[in-house]
């Protein structure tokens, strides 16, 4: 029936209106602002064409920030997937209390990344931090954990991976349980050892799970924001900023709204190219069974 079809389309109107008002309109506004020089609050705006985009190339913080974003994105992806798969393989074994272990390992995901960073900040502090306390227990010297941009970036990557490892763990647990037992039995009958069974049977059949986990972690890591605010606030000397963090700093601290919008669009393109590329590459590797 024709009329019924139109009623179906009408049902999408609330969702479409909300997305138009709160996603499409801001997106259009961001694109428009990226062509202006504007401080973010005054009435005065000046059209500068593509100048904001050209300026990005010579920005002293840009390359460093892209590098940090890649460390946050790719580093977290590798760490979360390797540890998540190991945790899943371990928690797929039968022992008393393993369900409680799963519940505890997933728990940090329920806590705001910002708050988690705040708690972990008291671990990496120089004076009285928990890590330095542990070092002293073994007779070591205090360490400036967040002393350089690179170490701050590395520690934030570690904290982010630690907090969200549970997501990959669950995806791999579901993936492992979807592998028919007969494949592994067949491999065992053919004389495959534990390692061979893992690389030749388990891993190829896990590729759909790997695709999901990698893409989720990659996008999450590339747009990292909360943890950076509470652990390093971009420091020292803006050396641990991610692109997301730099966008907000440019807008709210440096009063460069137009330039910030332009950087936002460049960030969007970087994230999209990386995640689509990775996704396409992984989808090609999936096996049918």
């Amino acid at each position, binding site marked *: 029936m024709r009329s019924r079809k139109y009623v179906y*389309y009408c049902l999408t109107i609330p969702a479409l209106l909300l997305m138009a*008002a709160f996603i499409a309109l*801001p997106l259009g506004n961001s694109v428009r602002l990226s062509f202006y020089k504007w401080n973010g609050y005054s009435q005065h705006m000046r059209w500068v064409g593509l100048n904001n985009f050209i300026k990005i190339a010579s920005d002293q913080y840009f390359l460093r920030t892209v590098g940090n974003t890649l460390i946050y994105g790719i580093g977290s992806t590798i760490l979360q997937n390797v540890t998540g798969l190991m945790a899943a393989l371990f928690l797929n074994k039968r*022992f008393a209390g393993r369900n409680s*272990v799963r519940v505890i390992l997933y728990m940090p995901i329920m*806590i705001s990344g910002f708050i988690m960073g705040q708690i972990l900040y008291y671990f990496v502090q120089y004076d009285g*931090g928990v890590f330095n306390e542990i070092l002293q227990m073994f007779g070591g010297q205090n360490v400036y954990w967040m002393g350089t941009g690179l170490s701050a970036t590395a520690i934030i990557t570690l904290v982010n991976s630690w907090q969200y490892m549970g997501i990959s763990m669950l995806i791999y647990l579901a993936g492992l349980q979807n592998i028919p037992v007969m494949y592994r039995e067949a491999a065992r009958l053919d004389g495959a050892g534990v390692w061979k069974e893992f690389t030749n049977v388990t891993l190829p059949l896990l590729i759909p799970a790997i695709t999901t986990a990698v893409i989720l972690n990659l996008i999450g890591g590339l747009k990292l924001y909360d943890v950076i605010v509470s652990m390093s606030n971009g420091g020292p000397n803006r050396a641990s900023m991610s692109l997301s963090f730099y966008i*907000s700093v440019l807008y709210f601290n440096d009063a460069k709204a137009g330039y910030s*919008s332009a950087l936002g669009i460049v960030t969007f393109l970087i994230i999209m190219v990386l995640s689509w590329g990775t996704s396409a590459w992984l989808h090609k590797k999936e096996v049918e069974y």
Partner: protein
Amino acid sequence: MQTGIKAKKTVAGIALLTRKPHQYSSGRRTKAWHYIVAALLVLLYLLPIYVMLNLSFREITDIGSRLALPKKWVTYNYTQVLGGSEIWIGFVNSIIIVMETVAVQIVASALGAYGLVRGGGWISRALGSLNMGIMMIPGTVLLVGTYSLMAKVHMINNLLGLSLLSAAGGIPATMYMYMNFIAAIPRALDEAAEIDGAGVLKTFFIIILPLLKAVTVTQIILTATASWNNYLMPMYLLTKKSKYTIILVIKQAFNSNNGLGNLPQACATCVLGLLPVIVLYLFLQRYIIEGQIGSSIK
């Protein structure tokens, strides 16, 4: 239909996970090293919570080891926080935002997904792909565009404005989940209702929605926790203390006097602020874990 097959796969995944342990476990015998590794993992994941609890029960003058137990156990940090008004303002605002966001996001997404799946044709396909594209846009990319628009229409310090903003941001993913599940429901059900004279809305609410109970529960939980934990937009949009969410109240407690303030009291605020989420998680962990798997296996 492709999406139908995908949805079935997801359901199978959940069924397998909730089966009793002995049906799929690969290990044959429990060995001692299992318990050693398990204990280390638990220690690694509970240490921050232990430190926070430990700090929250001590006096402000107790600046010794953060790992050792308090020199003197006190509970006045908690009574002081609970006696103040900030934490209650935070709770009330957060609860309002969570309820508004959940209601708008779930209703709009479920209705929209139903319309798209049953409507069919090129319009549905086009809107479906548009939806996928929107899902890829990170929030910070829109920061300047969103904030300057919200300021222009006086939605700063407006809880409903913030709720609508976060609901709109969550709609693409939630709608996508619903589309997968609705595509797996046979059309014959709709047709039977239609023959009996039910309109589209009546069919949706009486026939379809009850079949979507499981996915709705998990989507409510995921939306509610995301909204409760939201930091970026509340941080910039809610500047008045009377509009602070609980996350902003915790942030303020830690940041008072540049972090040199009352650390034990800040930790007590943090424990109290996290408590509702942790308690709900422990009660609903089965749904949450299933929901996480269901929403990630596409």
